[in-house]
């Protein structure tokens, strides 16, 4: 039973990770996907992003959600920067009734939401957006 449950969990996790689209392909010569590059940039600034989990949204097929401090984060990979830009407005739907932002950084759509109202000055959101590579 224990093995079965473990395999189920592993299968779910691998299956979710396996949904990564074209946008998550490693960049030429960099060894990291554009989404990883965003996360790495935040890590480098010691902002400590949480582990990202697959997320299902209506405006993108390959998204992962997590947190950076008190800010909720959604990173969606697209096939091209133009596709990511086109998803900026729909991305605001994920923000909902909160302070937030949705911007394309290359082929990655970065969506941030301060649902806990813990960043009233918006400094963290501003820093996260500015650190994300284009």
């Amino acid at each position, binding site marked *: *039973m*224990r093995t079965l*449950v*473990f395999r*189920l*969990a592993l299968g*779910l*996790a691998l299956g*979710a990770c396996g949904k990564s689209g074209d946008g998550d392909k490693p960049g030429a010569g960099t060894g990291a996907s554009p989404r990883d590059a965003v996360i790495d940039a935040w890590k480098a600034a010691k902002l400590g992003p949480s582990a990202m*989990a*697959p*997320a*299902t*949204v*209506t*405006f993108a097929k390959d*998204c992962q*959600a997590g947190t950076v401090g008190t800010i*909720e984060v*959604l990173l969606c990979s697209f096939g091209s920067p133009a596709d990511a830009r086109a998803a*900026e407005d729909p991305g*605001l*739907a*994920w*923000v*909902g*009734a*909160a*302070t*937030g*932002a949705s*911007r394309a950084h290359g082929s990655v759509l970065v969506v941030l939401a301060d649902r806990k109202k813990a960043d*009233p*000055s*918006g*400094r963290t*959101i*501003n820093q996260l*957006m*500015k650190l994300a590579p284009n």
Partner: protein
Amino acid sequence: MSRTVAAVATLVALLVLAGHAGSADAAGRQVRYVGIHPVPKSEGGGICYIEGPHVHVFDADKVQYRDHHGANYFVGDPVAYGYDGQRYVYKGHHPIHVNVVVGDDEPDDEYCYINGPHYHYFAPPEGPEFRVAGDAYFYVGEPPHAYIEARPAMMRINAVYQPLAYERPVVTVDAPEGWIGARAELSGPAVVVEPPRAAVVVEPPRAAVAPARAGVTVQGFIPTPSLHIGVGIGIGSPGVIVHERAPAVIVRERPVIIHERPVIVHERPVIVHERPVIIHERAKVQHDNNHRSPHDHR
């Protein structure tokens, strides 16, 4: 076993949560902003430092914000609301090239109508339309029709800043030639600001034609953020044109009316209620010692 089950439950919960978060909360109405702006007091006050496009669930006013492709762009002085970042001093009205400030490709020129010295968090782009004097930017360009047309309505922004107490920049240098604040033809519909206890009457200056070279603008101003008195003298061929500029700000002495309130003394009548003295005469009752009470028991 229990740890494994918990891990699965967490994973499933995350997936469900992620899916749920994908739909926008219809209860709160998103309002789009771009650039740094103040946060309303009702929302905690202070400054929002998000430079790029973003959303809040509170509204923007129509005097301190302009529309930039569907987003509210703040054209006021952020220092008045507690902004503590990089700042630049301007004096008088000037254009703001919003697309340059926010870094997008769609041209959008808006105008700041704050009188006198004030701050913005951006410097103007290099070019001939601004000149620097005393570490302050002065607009010396040719203001377009859009600026003049919106001026009467947008000058209301000065009524917003007048009561705000904050450290304003002090600009003591003479404005450079061609400064918009000294141009007579732009004195147009002025805003009359009547300070609460103004006792100074500022009269429009008399035009004085001084020996001047062609194209020279002579100006005089009181170095106060809200008062500008300017005389523009444009001398050029073929004739001499003398513009007498009406004061942009008219300070009227407000009469002090003291309403003397009559003092009414209500005299309360003193009513003395004389209490009748009632004397109850106690009747003398002679007890018959031989009378036996029914309670007597022997």
